[in-house]
């Protein structure tokens, strides 16, 4: 019973965090793009004359989408058309189940692992979730009964073919270095120090893997510069026949995926919840100084560290969206097959060589 309760609380914490951050990102995207482009951005929604930098636009958007007509085209495959956004959204959220947001929390003699699911194949779970997530958009495209949507869905599936292999292979290096598929083990091993000073984060051991993962990860979020499936501005994509909250779900899925990719980047390459020199009993600096902290403070600090890292990467991904133009269709496939994939394989070989040499 207590186990189930704890699991529910953990799910509530993670879901609450992710969904709130996703909603905030819709606002952040507008404001960030505005500031980048020397504008002010959405600031008109007000409550009692209070504008709060346009934060109420989140609520205004949600209200608008909920009250809009939910139009289903006559030619649509009704059931699948209705299910597709939920498939996308569900599997995008599922990825968070294995992201560790702390090591263990000890309360009253009980050890609570701070992740929803303690899987020893954590990253494969995320691969599976993301591979299934793409079905949502492909199904949406097929079931809409519109050629534009079908083409969008097909672009989505081709895009997936182009980057998913490179994406998977780019992570192999990480698992060779940290010797585990369990995300928490990977994070724990990133707490070690290299030559006594440098934290052994993934970015240090796998710089090339990081770049490849970042590039392929952006393709997963289906946002500019890889927004071929959507092509909001002109080529229109798989969700062209959606309105109301179903469209809103697709919209939100993109932001959830952005957070998922950010969380993965933080977890795999930037030490996850690890703070440099923070051991379970406090800070232990390489120059000998120590600063002991109690268990709860450490857990809290680690959680905050992870959140800050995630927010940073969300910021980066948003900035990327407002910096680069979209890739052409063939350029994307070129990039995926001819650049990312060979580089990822080279990275694996290089990592293997270095690891053997070290041993």
């Amino acid at each position, binding site marked *: 019973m207590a186990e189930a309760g704890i699991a529910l609380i953990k799910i509530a914490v993670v879901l609450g965090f992710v969904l709130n951050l996703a909603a905030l990102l819709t606002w952040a995207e507008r404001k*960030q793009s505005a500031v980048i482009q020397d504008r002010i951005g959405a600031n008109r929604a007000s409550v009692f004359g209070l504008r709060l930098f346009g934060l109420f636009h989140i609520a205004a958007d949600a209200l608008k989408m909920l009250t809009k007509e939910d139009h289903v085209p006559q030619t649509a495959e009704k059931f699948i058309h209705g299910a597709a956004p939920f498939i996308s959204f569900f599997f995008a959220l599922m990825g968070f189940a294995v992201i560790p947001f702390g090591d263990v929390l000890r309360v009253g003699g009980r050890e609570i692992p701070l992740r929803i699911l303690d899987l020893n194949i954590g990253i494969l779970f995320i691969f599976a979730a993301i591979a299934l997530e793409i079905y949502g958009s492909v199904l949406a495209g097929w079931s809409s009964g519109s050629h534009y949507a079908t083409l969008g869905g097909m672009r989505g599936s081709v895009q997936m073919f182009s980057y998913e292999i490179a994406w998977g292979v780019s992570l192999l290096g990480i698992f060779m270095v940290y010797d585990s598929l369990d995300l928490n083990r990977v994070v724990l091993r990133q707490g070690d120090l290299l030559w006594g000073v440098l934290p052994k984060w993934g970015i240090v051991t796998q710089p090339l893997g990081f770049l490849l993962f970042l590039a392929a990860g952006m393709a997963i979020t289906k946002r500019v510069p890889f927004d071929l499936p959507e092509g909001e501005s002109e080529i229109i994509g798989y969700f062209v026949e959606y309105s109301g909250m179903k469209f809103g779900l697709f919209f939100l899925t993109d932001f959830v995926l952005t957070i998922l990719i950010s969380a993965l980047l933080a977890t795999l390459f930037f030490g996850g919840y690890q703070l440099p020199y923070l051991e379970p009993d406090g800070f232990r600096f390489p120059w000998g100084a120590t600063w002991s902290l109690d268990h709860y403070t450490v857990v809290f600090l680690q959680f905050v560290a992870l959140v800050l890292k995630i927010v940073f990467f969300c910021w980066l991904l948003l900035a990327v969206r407002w910096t680069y133009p979209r890739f052409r269709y063939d350029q994307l496939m070129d990039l995926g097959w001819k650049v990312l994939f060979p580089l990822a394989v080279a990275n694996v070989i290089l990592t293997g060589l270095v690891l053997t040499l070290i041993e």
Partner: protein
Amino acid sequence: MAYYNVSRPSEKLTWRERIYLPELFKGLRITTRHFVVNLALHAVRLLGIKTRRRGAVTFQYPEERRPLSPRLRTRHRLTKREDGMPRCVACMMCETVCPADCIYIVAGELPDPNVEKYPVRFDIDLGVCVFCGFCVEACPEDAIRMDTGILEIASDSREEMIYSIDRLLSG
């Protein structure tokens, strides 16, 4: 008009551009610089400190208006004589020259032999007007001008878009 000498970079990409990565960082640096600088400017101005530059180049329209050029053609008005009569002598020049055919004038007779005619009706259908300003150019009496600075000419019906002589005279 001044002209600019544009030097085009050669079509061939250098190897640095072909690697792509440095160029990506260049782009990201530009947007990040805009982001950081503008955010800092916004923050500083929010604290009430005056800065020479603003964080945004846009105008917050209903509250803030851009200064208009005096030459800008805005809504028409009919000018008046000292005694309050319209300067217009109903010569029909503007009605004739109007390419949109949106001016409608009915002339009346005046006892004053120097003036002879005055407009009984003077309607401009602003829903049709193309704001070419020909009417202003054509007028021999400087009776019609487009210098009110009024840009918001909208209404809920087409009839309301037809401005009669009273509305045009009252500025």
